[in-house]
């Protein structure tokens, strides 16, 4: 269900908009779910994934933690290999943090959204 929603979303909203953090599925990146305070971006990381093209993989924080390999720029992504960006969002009011994972295929400068979700920052504490 989540994947279907993402695909529909992707057709309407470009990955760029998701990046800016308008909405991600039904979960808002704008408002803190703890105190409704404003969430701001507090970090961005780029990783390589051991997945090719549009292959499916387990969609979980644990999967990304186990398999993501840090890279510095999209130039390091071999053609046909998936990558993901992880955005850390922090509440300006209470400091609550979340991680937004955008799983994509990098094709000649364009990014095709293939998956991703929003996860509690706690799960990624030791990862960053």
């Amino acid at each position, binding site marked *: 269900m989540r994947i279907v929603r993402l695909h529909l979303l992707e057709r309407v909203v470009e990955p760029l908009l998701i990046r800016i953090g308008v909405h991600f599925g039904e979960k808002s990146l704008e408002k803190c779910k703890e105190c409704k305070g404003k969430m701001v971006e507090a970090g961005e990381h780029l990783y390589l994934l051991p997945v090719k*093209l549009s292959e499916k993989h387990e969609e979980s924080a644990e999967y990304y933690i186990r398999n993501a390999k840090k890279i510095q720029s999209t130039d390091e992504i071999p053609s*046909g290999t998936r990558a993901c960006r992880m955005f850390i969002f922090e509440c300006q009011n209470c400091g609550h943090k979340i991680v937004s994972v955008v799983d994509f295929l990098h*094709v000649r400068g364009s990014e095709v959204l293939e998956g991703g979700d929003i996860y509690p920052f706690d799960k990624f504490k030791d990862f960053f």
Partner: protein
Amino acid sequence: MKKYNAAYILIQILIVIVLGVGSGFAFVYLTHMKNPLASGIAFSIIFLFFFWLIAMSTTNAYSGKIAKKTLNSETEAQHFEKCSTFITKDSFTLGQILKIDAPTGRVAYISFQNPKQCQIVHASELTNISSSYIKGPFGGTRYVYFQFYYKNKRVRFATFTSRNMYSLSSRQVLEGISKADMFRDILLAAQRTQR
């Protein structure tokens, strides 16, 4: 790379002719039609067309089986180990398989219309390895591919085909381009391995 084997294609044509003409005349004979010769020829043409369509749409299925068997036994005998494989087998297109052995840079090719001959060359013998798409009107495409030349003859593999025009920024086209770029890069990397 030799894509067509005359004998194999002739056999398929012969089978279609025998089945078509045989069914045409059998049909006329069994229904006791008048003018058996004229009706026989007419029905033969109808059945020929029918069997021709069936042959065209199923050749990749049965020829592909033979081709795969040939390719697998040959690449096994030649110790292909870490392979990337690309198969095209859409109906009404030429089925082909490309198998690239990364550690040795060898490339195995087989065409479904020449399914008994597995051709193995080193990637350094290939030239003009590239990936691209055929531009359609309004900046769209319905054909994305990667290709190379071997002895001045082009071998092309489609990674995306469609009856309809797709935008270059569509998911389908971008995924096709990504796949084409990936195989182009696998071939280029194979070229750099020692012969």
